[in-house]
């Protein structure tokens, strides 16, 4: 357990249901959920670009599966936001692009054929995700606790997939060069995964998440840096403040890649004159998640 853990934070699961929260707590819970949901939604949106374009048929089927897992996780987190009176429509389809709180790492486009980007991005993201989700296992908000185990259940596959490809590509000189280029480009954006929202202090103080993001960032660095270095890759060095991109994601600012992507995935919804998002599956609360 980290020394930073707020010792007087509420006990795991003790906050009660959505209707039991005071405004301050509710705002903090919403901020945490929004980051979780948007990260998974947008990373999945980008992963699907690899469908039918993977380096092998098997890799194609694999990345499609990972995309579906992540999108399914986004669906579970958005569903918890619906407890507070939102619906999928206002959270996604009729939202403003500036409402999204995902890290800039997940919104960047893939250059055609740049599988090294996909591998590095996934590696950096999936390790971040594991740490953040583990810090939610004992969340004071019980609705998160109910779902985080199922979400974590699908994550080891993602990490192993990224690590296997990372090792494989690093065995080849050209592959390693491409990994390095991807790492140079992506690492600053990966740091935005750990950027706080304006609710960070409340999230930790209320025990919604058991570890502050800056602690998670150091844990993450302690995992990924030695592995990447061991593969002959150079992790960009310097103060995070210098490395971080201008847009931080978590504060609603995004790179130039975001708005075009947002319009691409929302325009059919508007074109069809939709007013609601069609569900095909039972509500997660009705299903055995």
């Amino acid at each position, binding site marked *: 357990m980290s020394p930073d853990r707020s010792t007087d934070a509420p006990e795991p699961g003790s906050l009660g249901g959505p209707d039991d929260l005071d405004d301050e707590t509710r705002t903090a819970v919403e901020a945490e959920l929004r980051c979780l949901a948007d990260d998974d939604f947008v990373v999945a949106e980008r992963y699907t670009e690899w*469908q039918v374009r993977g380096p092998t048929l098997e890799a194609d089927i694999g990345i499609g599966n990972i995309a579906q897992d992540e999108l399914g996780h986004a669906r579970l987190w958005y569903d918890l936001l619906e407890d507070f009176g939102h619906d999928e429509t206002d959270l996604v389809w009729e939202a403003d692009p500036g409402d999204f709180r995902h890290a800039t790492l997940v919104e960047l486009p893939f250059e055609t054929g740049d599988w090294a980007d996909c591998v590095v991005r996934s590696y950096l993201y999936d390790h971040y995700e594991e740490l953040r989700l583990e810090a939610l296992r004992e969340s004071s908000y019980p609705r998160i606790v109910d779902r985080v185990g199922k979400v974590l259940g699908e994550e080891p596959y993602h990490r192993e997939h990224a690590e296997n490809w990372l090792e494989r590509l690093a065995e080849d*000189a050209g592959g390693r060069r491409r990994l390095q280029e991807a790492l140079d480009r992506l690492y600053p954006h990966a740091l935005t995964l750990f950027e706080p929202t304006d609710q960070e202090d409340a999230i930790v103080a209320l025990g919604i998440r058991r570890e502050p993001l800056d602690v998670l960032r150091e844990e993450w660095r302690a995992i990924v840096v030695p592995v990447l270095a061991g593969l002959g890759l150079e992790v960009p060095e310097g103060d995070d403040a210098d490395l971080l991109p201008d847009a931080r994601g978590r504060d609603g600012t995004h790179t130039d890649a975001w708005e075009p992507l947002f319009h691409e995935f929302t325009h059919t919804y508007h074109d069809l004159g939709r007013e609601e998002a069609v569900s095909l599956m039972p509500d997660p609360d009705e299903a055995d998640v």
Partner: protein
Amino acid sequence: MDVETVEARAGPREFGPGDDMPEEYRKAATRMIQFHANSEIMGAYLERPFIREAPSIDRKLAFSAKVQDEIGHGQLLYRAAEELGVKTREQMLDELARGEGKFLNCFHYPMERWEETPMIAFFVDGAAMRRQATLKRTSWEPYAHAMDKICFEEGFHIKHGESILRELMTGPRAVQERTQAAFEEWWPRILQFFGPTDDQSTHHDFSAAVGLKTMTNDALRQAFLNAYVPKARQYGLELPDEPRVYRDAETDRWVVEQDDLDWDEFWTVAKNDYDGSHVQIGKRERTQEAVEWVRDAIESPGQGGVTPAAADD
């Protein structure tokens, strides 16, 4: 085994990798299965953009899962073709990228709007599934085994397509009209799926004689129209005046007026020479070339690479 023996023994799942098949059989089966596998890949190309376009999270998941299945089907089919010993999967994928691989006529046309998606996801896939169901009885055992899994999965695809169609045809009037327009555009191509009715296909007789094909195109067309014309009407889609399609009261069979269909275009498509063919094949070629480096890197790691162990030295 000579061709006469093959014809005499031909039956469902009769021949497998352990059998000494004549070259004519191996080539005919390779041509047929390669065409089928290529079609899975090229169909997925048309549908992939609609993962992004999908207007709800659940629809996005379903489209992603469907495209994933199609690539999975291609994977199974290339294996069934490889077992014939004529071509490797890499050769077949290269032929596809070079524009030498043939695939279904419908996948040579662009698909740009959501209203078009059920034309493939319901009607074309419905036609394909009708054909695939009969191929569970093909004489090449690995092909039949692939069909077992493909037919198992495919029911989801058709129902997904139908549910999109239903949603569109119960939506705003303008959306219904655009869906009708998409139907009119795609309907002739869908009718051509099964080839000309007076098909003197050079491949058919041999394929049927050796049990690779188990049903004629005409019988498949009849079964398809029996099931899908009422479906189109159920959702309020109107068959266009042309091509003329009607049920002949005397024979109680569907008639598709051949002169109403553009067969020049069909044969141009069949030669991969239609404008859309160049576009679709070009996409395949570019994306395949763009990841060539990955295959090179994993098949023959180049000099100067480090293994995880060596990196610690």
